[in-house]
């Protein structure tokens, strides 16, 4: 019997998933796909990480060319279907390719809605929908300037965060009074707005776009109230419209989308429809979970099985690193609804559960979202929560005295509790797949069940289910530090602390390193962790430091070194300058340069000259500027009240004090500071790792800036009144970073990982903790503030600086 011919119009995520299910059930079909996009099937919901630069296109491909070949699928890329002849059961593409079908699937998806304001066709106006849009946005970002994102919904905000991460100034225009008003109540919307504003994204709510202006290309956006916003890129993310034109042309029943029954069959029994173009029971969908449910049902229908699409509330999460929010169900103003609300302003958390007749009908969580899945389970089951109303808001860990074991929470979930929202996979399905197929790793579970294979936010839960199902047989595979261990940086830091490990061999032995003595990746990291963990006790392992930190100078491409003496706060004196000039002459140093951190760099010093150079500089009162260190580098300053007519405080003086306080400290990655005397910011404090902006009322401490490969402004930590408090607070922040940062992780990445709200709560809001961290920093400094140059001039590590033997001399004798 010859195979039936299945033709699919569209090659997005829904039909891709449908085919996977179909091939599991039957081999009865010959499949032909027509795709208007010139690509294979990729994970559209991961476009945001591609935009922000966290992932590449290859990372998000779902089906590569090999997959199509393996299943004998004919894929026509870049071929748009223009005609469907239902009587003859044939389709024809724009390029003239014809194909007959027995079964046809419409998966034409949707088109982003473009607001038809004047100027919407200008170059530089795009939607946020496919890879072409992302490419256009990234290209615009390389030019810098301002991006205006129209639409403060899920997609718009992800676009905004991505563009910000690419270094653009970003303004979000949103018609409604608060962000994401369909998923978030005003309180959570406010917290989100505050967080995004803190990241330098300007949010304008109740903003109605009137026109886009520009000569050939976007130059500005005009609002209804007359405001003009400069813009080099405009992204519209205001919604989608199902693509129904082709279906309409060939006479299928069409409403908002292509009308299908619960079995995904359209008004023509040989034609099905799945994805964003399909309308089922009066609803069209844009989130991936219901679309994957459609895919499952359609595959069942095609293979002669039974399936019915059922509407579910889909939880919403925002894929912006460091922003945690979760929303599901309803939260309207219906008087029959009751709320339970918990706010912790200091930690920036907000939890709200919405009840009707003691049953959960919605939940909005911001900051702490760990219990989202638990609330959603109540929502789906419709179970009464009357007995636990008083403790419900505190989350699952606080019910009936259950211990705070993270696995306990997962163990308590029912088999039909949804774990992976994107793919609609329940706990029971995962457990069943593990047992029946003998799966042992996260990767295998992903491959077989799709759980956590889309947006990845449920990875921890899935690992929890694997751990529960396999018991001790499962070892959680975190991304290891390097090939020498499967343990991640975080695990290693915790274990060093909890097991009291105080040497590199001890760490490698106790944590079961797979190589005898580590490698050039893990050894410097371990050395730093030990230095940071056990000040005064651990003896720095020179052989585990990179050459720059071993010889206290920066190796240059020709094997010579650069030497930078410290100039506290960027201040120097005629005597120091004379000494530097003399050294440059005496040792024939070819290049003398002023650095970006307000220091003087002597470049091209021969290794054997290092010690005499340092000795001369030491004698003139200078110490190592640590320009080579994963540690405190420089504190840059402006001239402040001493000289500047705008200065509000003694910024130079504070910079000097800060540098005297901080110098010598090692940190996960280099640490550069600046103190600027007024908000005009001449010292460029707002792109530093840590900055201080002096204002009339005190000192505004900011941190998390970057101005390297990645450019981003700082986020405010808080305002303090005195210099003393400013210095101690920065000490506390530095110490928290030193204790929890991963080796080579700059402070902005660390802050993204931990969350700015969390860091503020620990080192700023909680005075007791702030003091404890500052005290620990100062204790550590008592061991760290030793000038490495002076030590070496005195003879330490002498072997580093001269050859072991010079056979040329011997030969000449």
């Amino acid at each position, binding site marked *: 019997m010859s195979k039936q011919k299945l033709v699919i119009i569209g090659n997005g995520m829904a039909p891709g998933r449908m085919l996977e299910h179909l091939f599991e059930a039957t081999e009865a079909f010959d499949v032909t796909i027509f795709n208007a996009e010139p690509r294979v099937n990729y994970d559209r919901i991961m476009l945001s990480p591609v935009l922000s630069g966290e992932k590449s296109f290859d990372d998000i491909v779902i089906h590569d060319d090999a997959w199509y070949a393996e299943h004998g699928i004919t894929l026509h890329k870049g071929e748009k279907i223009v005609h469907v002849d239902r009587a003859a059961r044939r389709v024809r593409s724009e390029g003239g390719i014809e194909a007959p079908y027995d079964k046809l699937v419409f998966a034409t998806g949707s088109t982003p809605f473009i607001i038809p304001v004047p100027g919407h066709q200008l170059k530089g106006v795009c939607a946020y929908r496919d890879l072409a849009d992302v490419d256009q946005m990234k290209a615009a970002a390389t030019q810098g300037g301002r991006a205006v994102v129209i639409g403060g919904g899920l997609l718009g905000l992800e676009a905004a965060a991505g563009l910000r991460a690419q270094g653009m100034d970003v303004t979000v225009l949103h018609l409604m009074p608060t962000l994401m008003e369909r998923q978030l109540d005003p309180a959570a919307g406010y917290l989100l707005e505050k967080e995004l504003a803190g990241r330098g994204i300007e949010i304008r709510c109740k903003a109605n776009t009137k026109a886009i202006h520009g000569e050939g290309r976007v130059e500005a956006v005009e609002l209804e109230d007359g405001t003009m916003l400069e813009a080099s890129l405009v992204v519209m993310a205001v919604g989608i419209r199902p693509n129904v034109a082709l279906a309409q042309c060939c006479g299928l029943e069409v409403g908002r989308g292509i009308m299908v029954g619960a079995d995904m069959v359209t008004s023509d029994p040989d034609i099905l429809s799945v994805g964003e173009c399909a309308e089922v029971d009066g609803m069209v969908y844009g989130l991936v979970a219901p679309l994957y449910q459609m895919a499952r049902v359609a595959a069942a229908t095609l293979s002669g099985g039974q399936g019915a699409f059922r509407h579910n509330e889909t939880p919403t999460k925002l894929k912006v690193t460091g922003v945690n929010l979760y929303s599901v169900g309803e939260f309207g103003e219906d008087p029959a609804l009751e709320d339970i609300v918990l706010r912790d302003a200091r930690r920036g958390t907000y939890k709200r559960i919405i009840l009707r007749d003691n049953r959960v009908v919605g939940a909005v969580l911001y900051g702490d979202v760990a219990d989202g899945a638990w609330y959603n389970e109540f929502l789906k089951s419709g179970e009464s929560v009357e007995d636990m109303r008083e403790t419900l808001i505190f989350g699952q860990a606080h019910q009936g005295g259950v211990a705070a074991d993270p696995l306990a929470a997962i163990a308590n979930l029912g088999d039909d509790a949804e774990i992976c929202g994107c793919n609609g996979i329940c706990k029971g399905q995962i457990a069943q797949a593990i047992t029946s197929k003998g799966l042992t790793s996260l990767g295998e579970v992903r491959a077989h069940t799709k759980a956590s294979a889309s947006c990845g936010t449920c990875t921890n839960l899935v690992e929890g289910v694997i751990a529960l199902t396999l018991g001790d047989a499962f070892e959680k595979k975190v991304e290891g530090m390097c090939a020498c261990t499967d343990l991640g940086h975080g695990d290693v830091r915790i274990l060093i602390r909890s097991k009291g490990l105080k040497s590199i061999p001890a760490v490698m032995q106790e944590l079961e390193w797979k190589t005898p003595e580590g490698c*050039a990746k893990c*050894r410097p990291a371990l050395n730093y962790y030990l230095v940071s963990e056990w000040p005064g006790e651990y003896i720095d392992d020179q052989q*585990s430091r990179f050459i720059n930190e071993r010889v206290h100078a920066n*190796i240059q491409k020709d094997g010579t070194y650069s030497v930078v003496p410290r100039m506290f706060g960027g201040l120097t004196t005629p005597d120091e300058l004379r000494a530097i000039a003399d050294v440059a002459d005496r040792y024939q140093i070819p290049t003398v340069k002023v650095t970006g951190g307000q220091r003087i760099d002597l470049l091209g010093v021969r290794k054997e000259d290092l010690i005499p150079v340092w000795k001369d500089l030491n004698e003139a009162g200078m110490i190592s500027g640590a320009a080579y260190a994963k540690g405190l580098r420089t504190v840059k300053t402006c001239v402040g009240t001493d000289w500047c007519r705008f200065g509000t405080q003694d910024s130079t003086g504070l910079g000097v004090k800060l540098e005297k306080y901080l110098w010598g400290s090692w940190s996960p990655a280099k640490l550069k500071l600046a103190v600027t005397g007024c908000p005009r910011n001449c010292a460029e404090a707002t792109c530093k790792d840590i900055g201080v902006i002096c204002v009339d009322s005190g000192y505004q401490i900011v941190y998390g800036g970057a101005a390297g490969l990645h450019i981003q402004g700082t986020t405010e930590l808080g305002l303090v009144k005195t210099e003393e408090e400013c210095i101690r607070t920065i000490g506390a922040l530095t110490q928290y970073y030193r204790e929890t940062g991963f080796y080579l992780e700059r402070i902005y990445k660390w802050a993204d990982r931990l969350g700015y709200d969390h860091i503020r709560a620990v080192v700023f809001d909680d005075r007791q903790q702030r003091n404890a961290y500052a005290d620990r920093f100062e204790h550590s400094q008592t061991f760290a503030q030793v000038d490495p140059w002076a030590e070496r001039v005195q003879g330490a590590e002498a*072997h580093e600086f001269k050859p072991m033997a010079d*056979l040329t001399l011997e030969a000449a004798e």
Partner: protein
Amino acid sequence: MNAEAIITFARVESDWRLVGRIEDIPRQGARCVKTGEMTVAVFRTSDDRVFAMEDRCPHKAGPLSQGIVHAGCVTCPLHNWVISLENGRAQGADEGATRTFPVKVEDGSVYLKL
């Protein structure tokens, strides 16, 4: 044996050149020997084995003596190529090799054959 005597011995056996004592080289470290035409890096591993090769990475001539030594290899400080101490070959996907030289330790003295 004093140092004078060794030097005499080295001159007699002109193949093997005395370059110093093993304790002059830090474990998991290296020292340089200048020969006039090049610099040779002499490595000492954590288990006191000694290797010698030209102090020049096959990639961009980085000074291998300045790299981190681990499990029979050194990682170049310039671009992280990993070079085998035994045969001078680049490990992993990188291709290239550095000249190696015979080296031996007798009574704690290190001899190099160029």
